[in-house]
């Protein structure tokens, strides 16, 4: 198959880019994700996850069952920020506030 064939529809990452990441030592879907942005788009790897796992399995000659899936993130579907803000008074125990700007920066 042509190496320029798209694998990740959202971020438009092709076979070639994934194979290069594998050549650079990537062994899991999430390694490739961090190097290429594959699976980081709006569908959050729902379509490309198994496509990429298959490429890894073939390239590294490892059984498909041993290639970990991508780590799924909340929210499981794209959600408007406004929808998330409602009903927040329910379960928040420790109010998380930011005193100094650098605290979430590493």
């Amino acid at each position, binding site marked *: 198959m042509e190496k320029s064939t798209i694998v990740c529809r959202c*971020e*438009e990452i092709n076979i070639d880019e994934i194979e290069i990441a594998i050549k650079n030592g990537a062994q899991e879907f999430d390694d490739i994700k961090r190097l290429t942005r594959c699976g980081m*788009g709006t569908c959050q790897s*729902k*379509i490309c996850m198994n496509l990429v796992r298959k490429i890894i399995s073939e390239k590294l000659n490892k059984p498909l069952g041993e290639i970990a899936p991508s780590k799924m993130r909340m929210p499981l*579907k794209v959600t408007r920020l406004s929808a998330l803000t409602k009903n927040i008074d329910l379960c928040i125990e420790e109010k998380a506030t930011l005193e100094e700007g650098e605290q979430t920066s590493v």
Partner: protein
Amino acid sequence: MHINEHPIMNNHFNKDITFTYQGQTFIAREGQTLAAALFANGIKKLGVSRKFHKPRGLFCANGRCTSCFVTVNGLDHVLSCMTLVEEGMVIEANNSDPTVRSGQN
């Protein structure tokens, strides 16, 4: 094209409604999703991809692939396969990253 006589199922739509897409008026059946209403009117390309601006449209029809985003009444990136069409809806193609505007809900 709308199917008027389905070979197996009864027609479960009983009302026609109108909506606009890119300023043009079209007819849909009440109860259809936006993606289906657009498809029925021959509109398959719903927008373009971010990086290479390639055409995109309905792919999974189950709210998973996010290829079918459109703008609905000014709100960008609405999943057209999971949203029902409504009378008078103003729909636009998804040709750029969403812009957040104030005063919407």
